[in-house]
């Protein structure tokens, strides 16, 4: 890393001498993986990656260049200069060093976990699932590793960061003529605090609940969204709160700042400073300090989230949400860890209150709707019918439809007290929306 760090420093020096401002990102990482497919240990693998990226401003325009070939960093400045001629106008300055809050995202123990451990654990899960249902197939995957990065810019910022990551998922599959059931559960964290057995038991429970097939008549019903599927509904709101969408005129919320747009019980906060959460970090990908940001407060739109460029376009400051998928990309606003406030009732009492409705575990086609206006219609890849407060079986060939903005304004029937992490960066309660259109074949 030391050698690479001086490579980054030299690159920055050269870039500064040939442009108005510059930024260098160096990142390297390694992850390992163990996969069981069709109930069999299939593959153990490893990925090593390295990348150096340069972003500079020349004649007021942005130029970027990146490579993963460390022998060929010599022409990066020339390349970035060449594309800057056509690049977008830079409306921002690279941030200087500011105070930032440390957050725990690196545990050196993760990298030290052996392949054997996950080979054995995976085999135990496969064996356990076989006892539970010998006709089902199970897929288990573990991915773990760490990444290091250095961010340097011409405003004097020099920050190094390290993060570890552990990803686990288990899926069960039951195939019968005319009926394929796929049920999965997964968790991601920066350290090994994943409850593998919890995930396994969840998959089993969903299998049992899906055993009976029941019908539901087309109509309007209360629909229970799990933390995962409520996230699918909220994705329209996240798009509308994205500062880039706001400045481009594509957001339904663009003129709604400080207005009460949603139900008073809806509060959404982005918090990138939570220890061990995968969306956390002390700075964003552009070197701006990460802060907690209230997006929706008791139904009122409080903030949009911005990166440097979209913030400059909007005439505000970056909120520390600059995300760059790769060093070659210019980046755009993205969320860290999103937290949805819980309600007052228990999940059990919420279910108990439903005379006839649907519980949605998984959608098919969640990403297919118009991302802007909030109209959705989605196939239930796994959904259950609720009758008199109890889950009675699986419904198939059923779609639900509605508008996310309208339902979150006038259609929240209940929010559970209990909240669950989905993946490693989204915390949500169970939410009942009503009336949701249910279309059944």
């Amino acid at each position: 890393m030391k050698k690479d760090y001086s490579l980054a420093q030299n690159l920055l020096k050269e870039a500064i001498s040939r442009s108005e401002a510059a930024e260098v990102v160096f990142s390297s990482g390694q992850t390992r993986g163990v996969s069981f497919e069709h109930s069999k240990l299939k593959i153990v693998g490893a990925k090593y990656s390295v990348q150096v990226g340069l972003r500079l401003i020349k004649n007021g325009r942005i130029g970027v260049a990146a490579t993963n070939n460390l022998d060929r960093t010599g022409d990066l400045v020339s390349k970035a200069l060449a594309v800057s001629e056509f690049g977008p106008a830079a409306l921002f300055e690279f941030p200087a060093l500011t105070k930032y809050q440390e957050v725990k995202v690196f545990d050196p123990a993760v990298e030290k976990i052996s392949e054997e451990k996950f080979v054995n654990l995976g085999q135990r899960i496969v064996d356990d699932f076989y006892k539970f249902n010998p006709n089902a197939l199970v897929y288990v995957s573990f991915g773990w590793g760490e990444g290091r990065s250095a961010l340097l810019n011409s405003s004097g910022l020099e920050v190094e960061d390290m993060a570890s990551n552990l990803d686990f998922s288990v899926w069960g599959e039951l195939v019968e003529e005319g009926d394929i059931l796929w049920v999965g559960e997964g968790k991601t964290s920066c350290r090994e605090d994943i409850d593998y057995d919890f995930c396994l038991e969840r998959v089993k429970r969903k299998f049992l609940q899906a055993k009976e097939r029941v019908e539901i008549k087309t109509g309007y019903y209360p629909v229970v969204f799990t933390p995962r599927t409520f996230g699918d509904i909220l994705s329209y709101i996240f798009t509308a709160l994205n500062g880039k969408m706001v400045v481009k005129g594509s957001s339904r919320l663009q003129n709604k700042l400080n207005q009460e747009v949603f139900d008073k019980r809806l509060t959404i906060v982005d918090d990138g400073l939570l220890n061990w959460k995968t969306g956390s970090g002390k700075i964003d990908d552009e070197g701006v300090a990460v802060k907690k940001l209230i997006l929706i407060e008791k139904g009122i739109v409080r903030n949009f989230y911005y990166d440097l460029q979209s913030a400059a376009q909007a005439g505000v400051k970056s909120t520390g949400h600059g995300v760059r998928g790769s060093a070659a990309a210019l980046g755009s606003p993205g969320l860290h860890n999103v937290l949805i406030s819980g309600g007052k009732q228990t999940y059990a009492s919420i279910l108990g209150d439903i005379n006839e409705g649907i519980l949605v575990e998984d959608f098919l086609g969640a990403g297919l709707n118009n991302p802007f206006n909030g109209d959705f219609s989605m196939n239930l890849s796994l959904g259950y019918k609720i009758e008199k407060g109890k889950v009675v079986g699986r419904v198939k060939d059923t779609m639900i439809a509605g508008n996310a903005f309208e339902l979150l304004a006038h259609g929240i029937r209940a929010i559970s007290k209990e909240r669950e992490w989905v993946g490693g960066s989204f915390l949500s309660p169970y939410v009942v929306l009503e009336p949701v259109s249910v279309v059944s074949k």
Partner: protein
Amino acid sequence: MLNQLSDAINKYKKRVDYLEVRAEESEGTGIKFRGKEMESVSQPSSRGGCVRALYKGGWGFVSFNDLDKLADKIEEAVSQARLVGRGKSRLAQVEPVEDEIRMIFRNDPRKISLKEKVDQMRDYHDQIWAVSPLVSDASVVYSDSFSRVYFASSEGTKIVQEFSGITAGFSVVARKNGLLQSNAAAVFDKSDYSVVRTLGARITQRVKLAVDLLEAEQVKSGQYTVVLNPVMAGNFIHEAFGHLSEADSVYENKKLRQIMRLGRRLGADGLNVVDDPTLEDGWGSYNYDDEGVRPQKTYLIREGILSGRMHSRETAGKMGEAPTGNARAAGFRFRPLVRMSNTFIEAGKVGFDEMLKDIKLGIYACNFWGGQTNQEMFTFTPGWAYMIRNGQLAELVRDVKLTGNVFETLGNIEMIGDDLGLRMEPGKCGKGGQYLRVDAGAPHVRIKNATVAGK
């Protein structure tokens, strides 16, 4: 380079049943306009490699950037495979080959200046905004890439292949009174930059569609007779059926193997579905797959009967079927999976007008906005759709979603058109996190009792 790879393999090959190395160098250009201005322009370059080892049926796989450390990585993949292997390695036999495939360009994008490419995209971008004041967002994206892939295996295969691709596309959002509607188009070619200049011809039509959709009524949910245009039908056959014919989802799944048994009737006599990586100039074509196997044309459905599937060497070996050369990887970061190439429904005999003639109330679904499948179930959104009333195309309708069970739907195909078109926009497919080039197509296809979700 090739000799370097095979020398490294030779040192380790006795410790495993099979060993292969791929190395790749690539470079390209990317341009993106978004909203009202240029968003990014880049010329990325990349280099890296991967090792895959097989021992007693278990795989090890390591990818990396630093080719100088090849020996270490082979060592690591070998020990991974030895940790996994507990059974028997069964790869379908193929003859080792030595070959070099060089790219021959009709119009090499590397010889076109960055300025010309940027100006062309800016021009398209301006054209989109000029069509209507209701345009609220637009993006125009260009990319070209050139790569050279080296492959060597412990069986003596040594191949160098060059690949190139040029794509240009746009999407547009039109907005009125809080309602937003989108549309998109893309063009692509392997070797001819000139294809980029053909994109402009679609701008006015697609932007107008997005604008007209703002005034369209939401479609009413229900069962309809649906006519799919060639792009939509091609996507249907790729997404809903094609993935089930990729043997890696079937070969170790007894139940699915039973469902996908060869000889099973899936549709009417005239239904023929093909995957053909050898199609001349095909966007999804290639000379060797990522296991160094020469590919072949495979009939997946012949006259309505399930008649074949796509294989890697492992799935073919384990199922006792012939390898088809469909193992593909999206670059050196990934191990090969069984993938489609150019997948299409062969032409039938029915003319478009005849197809519409006796439909009292139906839907004409055009192009493809998105889709998802869950093996047997699918949900697709066309780019746009019209009602069919009394045998005639009628008004545009919005927010159409087609959903159903693939086997039922194949059985419900009642007419196949005479107008095969091969073009799957945007020409990419994702599986296991790997996006790579494919094409799909079909003639117009008519399906009875299709479920449409809308209002």
